[in-house]
């Protein structure tokens, strides 16, 4: 492991990669601050740039830097404007925005920066410890287990969608899988479901789909709900944290780094759940007097979600790097980028290409440090970007969405597909359908079918389900993940109805 860490350090500390990580963090922070552009959209925009770089280590380091920067940037708009760019930073606005309103915007941003740094760094240390362990377990996995594991991942994503949303998330996942079957599959060399359209021969482009499902609807919603964008940058003063505040947030940061990391490791959980859970846990365990402060500008209430979401983002790299399974929409986009760069993430990555594996982990440390050093002095200036009038901002967001899809495929038809899917994405969002499962299903679909087909061919049918115990166990877990939340919700409803009658 030590040798791997050294290889990683050597790669990550090369001048080119240092510049790449600094550039990535800066770009991520600036674009992440724009309400409506979350890490997922920004990474999707940056993928064509990363792919053109050619070197997979540099490309991944760039995307990891952009990812961290975007999360920090998202917190900035949550705290200053109460306009969270992404779901993962919503919890940060609960206490961050009241702090900013009471003239402590600078302090709030500093706490956010320090908590993010601590969460990300402790998360990366846990990643160094746990990734190789998980990776060696993962080497025991064959096609059948991979197929079952992907089903577990997709079921977990549906199961964590929230009460009343499980079947919707499931339908979105199936829709993503259906879309992945369009075009010529690697296994059969037969065009499927192309409806005779030549442009569909190679299937739908994943960047187009990512843009259409995330960036485009978010930008259009900015037009639909214009009051969400404020023009006030907020007053920035008093960056310092007092000794008492530091003592109050230190244990919160420690707890939430670990909790956030392990929530991030679970496929489908991700930063949003980690941040909400972190906030809820810290609020529940705080003394009664401090509990009342939560929601009114508590430093603990800001540090908890900020630490947890950064630790969870690092945690979500574990299933991606060791099993090749993305735990969130963002890592799903990263997986797509990796495949485009001819790198297949999974248990073999650490053995076959240790320089990529370790360089990414080392760049997380460097990225977090760079973010802290760059952002603290830049905080007052960064906030100015939020004052760009929406009349300029929105056409630019739409233009970058179009460019992302065009550069990815170099095909003007792709732009029409983008707009078409974008309209579908807007309609789905209006009807409260969760969109990330669709994209995760789409990206995993090809691999899932390949592993399923390979297992079917090896065992001459579906015998692999009961002949390989691990596959059976994983599939049972997947079924339990879907069925249990539905049953639980039904029971809770029945109890509530009974209580109402009495």
């Amino acid at each position: 492991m030590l040798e791997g860490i050294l290889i990683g350090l050597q790669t990550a500390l090369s001048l080119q990669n240092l510049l790449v990580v600094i550039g990535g963090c800066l770009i991520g922070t600036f674009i992440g601050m724009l309400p409506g552009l979350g890490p997922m959209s920004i990474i999707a925009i940056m993928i064509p740039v990363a792919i053109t770089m050619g070197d997979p280590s540099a490309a991944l380091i760039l995307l990891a830097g952009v990812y961290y920067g975007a999360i920090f940037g998202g917190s900035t708009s949550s705290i200053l404007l109460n306009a969270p760019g992404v779901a993962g930073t919503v919890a940060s606005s609960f206490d961050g925005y009241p702090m900013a309103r009471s003239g402590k915007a600078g302090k709030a941003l500093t706490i956010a920066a320090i908590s993010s740094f601590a969460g990300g760094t402790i998360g990366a240390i846990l990643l160094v410890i746990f990734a190789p362990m998980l990776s060696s377990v993962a080497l025991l996995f064959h096609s059948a287990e991979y197929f079952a594991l992907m089903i577990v991942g997709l079921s977990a994503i549906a199961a964590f969608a929230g009460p009343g949303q499980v079947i919707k998330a499931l339908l979105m996942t199936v829709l993503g899988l259906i879309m992945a079957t369009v075009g010529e599959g690697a296994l059969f060399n037969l065009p499927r479901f192309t409806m005779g359209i030549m442009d569909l021969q190679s299937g739908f482009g994943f960047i187009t789909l990512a843009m259409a499902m995330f960036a485009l609807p978010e930008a259009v919603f900015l037009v639909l709900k214009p009051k969400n964008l404020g023009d006030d940058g907020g007053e920035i003063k008093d960056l310092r944290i007092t000794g008492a505040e530091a003592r109050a947030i230190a244990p919160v940061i420690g707890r939430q780094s670990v909790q956030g990391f392990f929530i991030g490791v679970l496929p489908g959980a991700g930063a949003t759940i980690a941040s909400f859970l972190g906030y809820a846990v810290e609020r529940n365990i705080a003394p009664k007097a401090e509990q009342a402060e939560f929601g009114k500008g508590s430093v603990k209430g800001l540090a908890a979600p900020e630490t947890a979401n950064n630790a969870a983002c690092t945690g979500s790299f574990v299933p991606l790097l060791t099993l090749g399974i993305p735990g969130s929409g963002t890592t799903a986009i990263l997986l797509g980028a990796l495949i485009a760069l001819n790198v297949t993430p999974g248990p073999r990555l650490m053995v076959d290409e240790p320089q990529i594996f370790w360089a990414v982990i080392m760049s997380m440390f460097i990225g977090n440090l760079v973010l802290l050093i760059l952002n603290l002095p830049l905080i007052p200036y960064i906030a100015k970007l939020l004052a760009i009038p929406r009349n300029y901002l929105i056409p630019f967001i739409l233009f970058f969405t179009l460019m992302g899809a065009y550069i990815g495929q170099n095909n003007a038809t792709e732009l029409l597909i983008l707009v078409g899917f974008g309209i579908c994405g807007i309609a789905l969002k209006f009807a409260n359908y969760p969109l990330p499962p669709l994209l995760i299903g789409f990206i995993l679909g090809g691999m899932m079918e390949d592993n399923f087909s390979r297992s079917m061919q090896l065992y001459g049918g579906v015998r692999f389900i009961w002949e390989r115990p691990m596959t059976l166990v994983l599939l049972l877990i997947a079924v339990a993940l879907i069925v249990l939340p539905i049953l639980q919700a039904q029971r809770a409803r029945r109890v509530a109805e009974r209580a109402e009658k009495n």
Partner: protein
Amino acid sequence: MTLDRWIALILLGVCLAYGYTAWFMMDATLAPFMRRNPIWPSTFPKVLSVLGILASLAILLGLEKGEQTVGDIDHRKLGQYFYGQALLLLGLMVVYALCLRPVGFMISTASFLVIGGVILGERKWYIMVPVALIATFAVWYLVEEVLGIFLRPWPLALVN
């Protein structure tokens, strides 16, 4: 019927069409030697079509009831949304897609940025036009010269 059920109905139609193709049409063109395989190109789609039909029926029939989570949309304020501007912007994107090749990157992009601003109510031409022109040139330079991806800058007629 609520919007999510309408969408479930549309998706049910999509899954039925997809399922019909997978179950009844795809296997007809399969080569005889491939029929001996335990897995056919239609196997996975067949499973997906069944899952898709079941899930959309479950939503359509309202089988899963739970507390309605509050999403991004405030359904009580739907009437206050700015639909006209959003539709015009989407239309502008379609026009941009159709014009990008024949008109060239420079003219179509600069026009897109300016017209986009106008649709949103911006009238400060002296800021809007220079910003659009500088951004267009900067992006073209980045994509074509730095990244090496071909983007035709001018209309086809001018080049020939």
